């Protein structure tokens, strides 16, 4: 009996073991490893919305509105090259003809916010700041016969986000604060619907975006009474709401186009943000409409230029991509994201999953955990295909053979001068290149011409400061901030070939920092205070109170400000921080390819696109100079034209007369940027240790020798690893 019982128990245990093993195997095959989804063998479902860019009229410089008419034709309102308000129409969205309207010349030159048409063809226009420019909101009603009437709106709305004329002539207006119905005759407020940002009228109802950002609220159009609430998390002013004739509602936002079928409970994403304009990080949705063929979505890029895309359903287009790749980046990089969108537009059969190591702020993942996860994937041979190497142990990845040598794609680009050689070539190790920067910044010193000729490094600046004790070299700067600024430039001087700290040289560096630093300066400034300190540094340099101001130049947009400062100083100039007489730059958006990728050719194409002119000339405000030669030229030319200007508003402790730098100045800056050849030393851990261990020296509790010894001791294990 006992033996029988034992056998039964043993059988049960074996069974449990076997089942648990099976369960383990089953769950593994179904899950995605590290967020990378692999294509499976499921049958490809056909049918997908296809994006098509609408080529807008070439004469038009600034578009106000694109309206799809009931007959399928399109009307575009905007300003032409002569800044004249113009109207263009097209039957196919390809060829445009300028239409003469009887009222176009009567609306005045004031900037138009929005334009709508009612069923009778009457056009309603709203103006920025109103007619009087004092914030009073005015809407003009322009009829086909050329008559233009003013509608003085009862409320001061300032910025109108959306406007729609009802069949009875009333107007519904959405602003940042409200959605309100006004009389089309005298502008009197009639009904307040609650909600904000946007709305859509569906028969006798109006659906508005709820102000709390969590629902769409259906109200009675006449009474404003709330009738139904439809949950949708994450609504904001970037959402556009539209509806079709059947009463289905669509929310258009950066996740794509989301459909709510009338009387259902859930939302369905019918156009996903990936290989289309929705996934483009530099585009903002400004308008959406629906017609018989599909959706018409207007986007605006960072320079304010409008782009219109049409989304139509193609039943013959495969719903799933046939090839999938993964791109890994610790933190989001807009330019790389732009490259992904661009590649997917050209190759809709390829899907590229973006894996963000640090995720958004809510995930709470720290850098160490993210790198550990990535390394686990790389070790298992299942790592991402493309890796954005910023913040990752690049040297180690190169040494371990993780990355692919990209010489075969980079060398031709360098030979044809497609890329800036001074920035890309330093990334070569002998004849191999494993990571290539997509952008770069250059730390520049601005100020006294004579001093700049004399000094290039922090040590030389300190020597000058000691020889001229009556003069202040830099505006109030904490030792910590100085270390952060100069460490990447000077590290090559005080690190030996084994990566260990050279005590004498490091001590000199510390003493130089101590000489230049303001001991009273607070070391824990908020980002806003840091920003203000930058402004002050420039102002005091401009007035000659201090000799220099430093700035890590991230784009041509700052040139005017510093040019104004050194012009005011009269004897001003600038030059990059140097090490061994070579200008230093900081590579950004360094991109590499996983050697073990199964899609090496696709990965190479993506890298080429990321370095190509089309993607590189995208305006990414203050995000670094681009490495593509033509795009770099374009950046410079946009600067000359004054398209993008930064930092005109300053704290103005010492006001600087603002000047627009001329072509010569831009050319000179371009030359300086193309002269830097030494990548800055980047090691966050080492920097943290140095700051930590040298605090005692700067607060007077340690000597320079003791601080140097403490740093050497503290970093020994790290640098030996």
């Amino acid at each position, binding site marked *: 009996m006992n033996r029988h019982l034992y056998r039964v128990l043993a059988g049960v*245990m074996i069974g449990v*073991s076997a089942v648990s093993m099976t369960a383990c195997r089953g769950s593994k095959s179904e899950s995605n490893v590290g967020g990378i989804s692999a294509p499976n063998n499921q049958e490809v479902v056909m049918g997908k919305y296809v994006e098509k860019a609408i080529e807008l009229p070439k004469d038009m410089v600034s578009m106000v509105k694109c309206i799809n008419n009931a007959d399928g034709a399109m009307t575009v309102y905007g300003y032409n090259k002569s800044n004249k308000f113009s109207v263009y129409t097209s039957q196919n969205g390809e060829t445009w003809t300028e239409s003469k309207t009887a009222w176009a010349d009567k609306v005045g030159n004031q900037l138009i916010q929005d334009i709508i048409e009612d069923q009778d063809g009457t056009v309603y226009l709203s103006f920025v700041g109103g007619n009087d420019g004092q914030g009073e909101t005015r809407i003009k009603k322009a009829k086909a016969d050329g008559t233009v009437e003013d509608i003085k709106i009862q409320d001061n709305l300032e910025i109108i986000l959306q406007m729609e004329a009802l069949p009875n002539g009333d107007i519904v207006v959405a602003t940042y604060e409200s959605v309100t119905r006004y009389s089309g005759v005298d502008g009197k407020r009639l009904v307040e619907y609650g909600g904000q940002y946007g709305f859509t009228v569906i028969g006798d109802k109006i659906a508005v975006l709820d102000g709390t950002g969590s629902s769409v609220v259906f109200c009675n159009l006449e009474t404003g009474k709330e009738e139904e609430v439809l949950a949708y998390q994450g609504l904001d002013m970037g959402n556009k709401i539209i509806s079709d004739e059947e009463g289905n509602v669509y929310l258009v936002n950066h996740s794509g186009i989301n459909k709510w079928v009338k009387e259902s409970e859930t939302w369905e994403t019918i156009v996903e943000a990936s290989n289309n304009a929705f996934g483009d990080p530099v585009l903002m949705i400004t308008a959406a409409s629906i017609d018989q063929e599909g959706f018409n979505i207007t986007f605006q890029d960072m320079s304010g230029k409008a782009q219109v895309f049409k989304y139509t359903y193609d039943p013959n287009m495969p719903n799933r991509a046939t090839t999938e790749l993964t791109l890994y980046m610790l933190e989001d990089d807009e330019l790389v994201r732009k490259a992904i969108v661009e590649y997917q537009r050209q190759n809709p059969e390829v899907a590229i999953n973006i894996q963000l190591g640090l995720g958004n702020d809510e995930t709470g993942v720290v850098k160490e955990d993210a790198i550990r996860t990535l390394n686990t994937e790389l070790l298992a041979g299942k790592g991402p295909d493309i890796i954005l190497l910023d913040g990752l142990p690049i040297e*180690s990845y190169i040494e371990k053979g993780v990355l692919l040598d990209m010489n075969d794609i980079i060398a031709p680009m360098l030979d044809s001068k497609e890329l800036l050689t001074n920035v890309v070539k330093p990334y070569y190790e002998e004849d191999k290149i494993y990571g290539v920067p997509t952008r770069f910044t250059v730390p520049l010193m601005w100020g006294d011409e004579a001093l700049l000729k004399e000094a290039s490094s922090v040590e030389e600046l300190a020597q000058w400061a000691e020889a001229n004790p009556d003069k202040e070299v830099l505006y109030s700067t904490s030792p910590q901030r100085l270390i952060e600024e100069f460490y990447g430039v000077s590290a090559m001087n005080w690190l030996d070939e084994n990566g260990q700290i050279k005590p004498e040289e490091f001590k000199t560096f510390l003493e130089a920092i101590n000489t230049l630093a303001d001991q009273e300066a607070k070391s824990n400034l908020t980002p806003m205070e840091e920003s203000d300190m930058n402004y002050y540094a420039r102002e005091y340099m401009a007035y000659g109170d201090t000799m220099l101001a430093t700035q890590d130049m991230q784009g041509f947009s700052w040139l005017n400000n510093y040019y104004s400062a050194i012009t005011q100083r009269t004897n001003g100039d600038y030059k990059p921080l140097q090490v061994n007489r070579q200008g230093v730059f900081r590579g950004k958006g360094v991109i590499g390819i996983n050697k073990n990728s199964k899609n090496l050719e696709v990965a190479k194409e993506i890298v080429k696109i990321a370095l190509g002119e089309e993607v590189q000339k995208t305006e990414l405000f203050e995000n670094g100079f681009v490495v593509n030669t033509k795009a770099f030229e374009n950046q410079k030319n946009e600067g000359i034209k004054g398209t993008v200007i930064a930092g005109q508003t300053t704290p103005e402790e010492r006001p600087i007369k603002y000047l627009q730098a001329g072509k010569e100045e831009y050319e000179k800056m371009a030359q300086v940027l193309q002269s830097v050849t030494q990548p800055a030393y980047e090691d966050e851990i080492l920097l943290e240790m140095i700051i930590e261990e040298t605090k005692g020296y700067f607060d007077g*509790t340690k000597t320079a020798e003791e601080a140097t010894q403490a740093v050497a001791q503290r970093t020994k294990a*790290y640098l*030996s690893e």
Partner: protein
Amino acid sequence: MHKEPKHISQNKPKSDLKIALCFILPSLIGVGIFILIPFLDVIRRSFCGAMNGQFVGANNYITVFNNEAFKLASKNTIKFIVVCIPLLIVISLALALLVNSLKKKNEIFKSMFLLPMAIPVASVVLLWQVIFNKNGLLSAGIEKLGMAPIDWMNSDWAFWILVASYLWRNVGYNMVFWLAGLTTLSESVDEAAMVDGANGWQRLTRITLPQLIPNLFTITVLSLLNSFKVFREAYLIAGQYPHDSMYMLQHLFNNWFMSLDIDKLSAAATVVASVILVLILFLQKTWESED
């Protein structure tokens, strides 16, 4: 008639072995999959390049033994074990003897000494920060005595704080093991010795401690293995690169993984595992010979 019992006695052990194997199987499979097989892979990797898998002979071991960081981490880890384990054994034994002598109230003390183990590591770390920060309670205390505040975790004190923390967390756990051993001892032997005129010290050293030798092996091995867990506290409070004195092997392993130095990591892990295995076997041998 004569052969039948013999036949049964021959078969019974075989059957017991099968049943025993069946019961061990689930655990064995788990240990095999999650520990033994991966460790075999680690040994394989210790003779190969980091990512290319090419055989490199003993190069990784040579690199590891010449690595300054490995030397420092090994030195600190050995120092930590050598200091902590004897201290832990002695203190926990003393406490166990003390608690054991309190016949009625010993349950309360047992619970009290086990309490540190129940406190989450994150809370312990928070406590450390409150106490040992440069602006913490301890510095405030010494400042009142006219001394300068100390950043305890970034000074040579860091090692001793780590030792104290380890002892504080583990002393109750070990004490329970000692108490378990003490409860198995026959009181009659002790009483007989007392009748024969032996004093307390003589009874402790001649009767109690010799009988606790079998427990010593288990407690030592557990203490040794637990000593490696102190890394959690050290890592949470001081990150990847703490003060030199508390830079342990686990810090190094963690950092090597971060930089994908799997070759060095595998070689060092093999070395450390071998040392621990040898140490355990040595202890077991010693214990068996004592037995």
